């Protein structure tokens, strides 16, 4: 199989590797870099467990080749916890609102929601649910995840901005 060089930044750290062209970004992250927090649930781009940020945008790492990420900045779930053991606001909101059970879909959920909260600091419940349609969870029935996202949004928001009412569209 043909090999090719790829250089990318993952969670702020640069990597240069020569890899098979067909190696997916997900397998590269998991098995070449040992970042096993990114999970594979379907490998056909529906379940969203493998979601990472590529240059700040959420992307399915199962549907990208590692060589396609050449020159990109990638953020995985490991990159959401910059202070070692200290959980981020969003991660802590998942603990407080029972936003996970088995934890397998969770990394993808966290990545999708960090993108949402960055772009829309005051999401309504409907907007959170809409953003999550690209991530499947079989355990929770989504209630805790939605609650965690809204809770995190509120904690991250400046106190001057009141939270939207349930169901309110912006």
């Amino acid at each position, binding site marked *: 199989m043909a090999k090719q060089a790829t250089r990318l930044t993952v969670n702020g750290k640069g990597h240069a590797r020569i890899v098979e062209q067909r190696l997916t970004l997900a397998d590269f992250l998991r098995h070449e870099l*040992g970042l096993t927090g990114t999970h594979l649930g379907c490998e056909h781009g*529906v379940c969203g467990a493998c979601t990472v940020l590529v240059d700040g945008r959420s992307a399915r790492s199962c549907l990208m080749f590692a060589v396609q990420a050449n020159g990109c900045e990638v953020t995985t779930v490991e990159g959401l916890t910059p202070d070692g053991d200290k*959980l981020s606001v969003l991660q802590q909101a998942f603990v407080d609102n029972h936003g996970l059970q088995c*934890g397998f879909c969770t990394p993808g959920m966290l990545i999708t929601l960090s993108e949402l909260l960055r772009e829309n600091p005051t999401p309504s419940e409907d907007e959170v649910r809409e953003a999550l349609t690209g991530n499947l969870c*079989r355990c929770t029935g*989504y*209630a805790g995840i939605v*609650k965690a996202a809204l809770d995190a949004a509120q904690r991250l928001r400046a106190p001057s901005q009141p939270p939207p009412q349930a169901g309110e569209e912006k």
Partner: protein
Amino acid sequence: MGAKHFGAKVARLEDPALLSGRGRFVDDVKIPGMLHACFVRSPYAHARLLGIDPKPALALTGVHAVLAANDLPDPMRSEAMPMLLPNPTISSLCTQHVLARDEVFYVGQPVAVVIADSRYIAEDAAAAVAVQYEALPAVGDCRDGVAEGAPRAHAAIASNVLSTFQLAYGDVDAAFGNAAHVYEEQIWQHRGGGMAMETRAVLASYDAASDLLTVWSGTQTPHIGRRMLADLIGRELESIRMIAPDVGGGFGPKAIFYPEEAVIPAAALKLGRAVKWIEDRREHFLCATQERDQHWDVAIAVDDDGKILGVRGRMLHDTGAFVPWGIIMPYIAAATVPGPYVVPAYRLETKVVLTNKVPTTPVRGAGRPQAVFAMERLLDRVARELQLDRAEVRRRNFIQPEQMPYEVGLIFRDGKPLVYDSGDYPKGLETALAEADYENFRERQRAALNEGRFIGIGIGNYVEGTGLGPFEGVTVRVLPSGKVAVATGATNQGQGTRTTLSQIVAEQIGCRIEDIVMTIGDTGAIAQGVGAFASRQAVNAGCSALLAGQNVRAQLIALAARVLGVNESDIDLDDGKAVANTGNKPMIGFGELARLAQGIPGVSLPAGQAAGLEHTAYYTPPQSAYCSGSHVAEVEVDAMTGGVKILRYTVAHDAGKVINPMIVDGQVQGGVAHGIGNALLEWMQYDEDGQPLTTSFADYMLPMATDVPTCAIAHVETVNPLNPLGVKGAGEGGTIPAPAAIIAAIEDALSPFDVHFTETPLTPERIVAALRAAGAYEKLFAA
């Protein structure tokens, strides 16, 4: 006694690692020199296997081996896998070989395995293995399978009807003969899967220095798995360790021991290298066990007041190609029909039919959603025919709380008479109705109708046998560090087992919950174990944690009293210390006590002192624990598209005493989501030749965040008198009545068109087809 943990909303101990990418699932484990496997699987639903040529695969660089049945060790080479739950009505021992020998029975059945340097190469090579088949006629539908002249699902088995059994009590024919009204329904529920987000996974590594075969498996039942593997691979139990590390969801299908769990260890032994196999999602659709396919012809006999006189009928259960767990699902289904109602006479004749599809074994609910759907559809029919309110029909037929314990008249799958230990079914329904504002629904419905919107409401009630034996074990051991080691054969696929057991132990022995070091899902940590299925762990493992904790507590108190020179009654255990309530309150830490309990070399322990501060309890329940619940669904149906939106979903749930309300609510909410999938979306389709048609998430729909509302959940606690914690199971109740409540609500929403639904999943196409057949569109366009 230490801090109050039991019954509190304690934050889960599992969460921080899983949230920061530090979980350890099977595919996260890496062994030096590890090889990767890919299976060669049958593309035919039924065929003779004529030959396998591995040479094209072996020619590829990086391929280490291609193994077929004859390359495996005895006994798995020649003997079929053991059946876990035999039943005398099963006419033929019907389990598969780990790799097919001369006949294949479903699409996806493993035929050979390729071992290579990487998964990528293994997949290339698996495609290159040349397998010769001769196609045989297949049974794709159990109704065809019972017809005269049907093809055989197994060439060597003359009848596709593997088991016929009847569950009955009372004089059902007399009840029907004298009844004022008899109503019949034909009911069909389709197959779906567990669809855990983590697919199945096996990693095996043999260490010659310790003669230990270690197997990591994404399983719900590592102890059972080890036993099955020992039988199939011909090794002693003690030379095998099976570990279920973090497991990404179970829902039933991972309770089964699969061929891959035998083949991968055999390959690792043969090659002297660690071998890993990670199932892909397509394989999960093809090969992980499924459930629900049942066809019911049932009738209910009632008097003029809508009181039940009897229920009778026939049921066909499509069991797929094998019966690895015997016939427990159709059995549970048959025993679940009477539910919370007084049914004076009952008879269900069940036929278990072999087909050329992947075997069925329990999926969250395990036969109960089908039974509850049948019973609740019959009661809705009674309400409609007699023009009674649907809640009122239930009220008139409920078993009353003062009738507890209530003997149904059947034998449950645990071999014990079906006796409900406790429960208050009327209170459960009234609680759910009040929370759902059922009283004012007809007003809401009229107002919606005036706007041209169709909304409806539906009810589902159930009783579920949970907490099945035989037992589960918990070891509690105080460590010299002062921490407390807990080991259990219970397992964790997201249920928060680590947290709930820690709550129980910490409260008993008076330590901080974060000082508990738990080993879960590891046969190396506790001698006996069973695992997760039948919503059994809170009852079995929970009570063992209580008993082991109580025992170690007594040991701690006795030793501390002796060391501190006070009476045992003066000792309090708190925060990892034993404190005497006398004098200047002398104290001693658990760590020091643990060192003392090790004794001094050469000196006998004082009389009555046990070795170490340690105890293992194996609690065995006297019978199943019967939980119950009432669900109310309110939906809106778009008559033009057949789209259904669940507006409001209410649950009143009785799981006995609740150990952690946050976790129980999570189980209920997640269970409802699974039930919504069963009701509206999930349909594992096959063609008439047994070819699977829905093998991706693009074809088989799982509920998304926009499909599942946040449920209103009320706990109706009736204490289970039969176990020391007073608990019942909670893992499946969310799923069981959901299809019944949702389909009833859809039918109610479309009542202006008088359509009737008796199938799941009720997809938009089916709704539109029913409306079209009922002439609804003529009415709508005329309006």
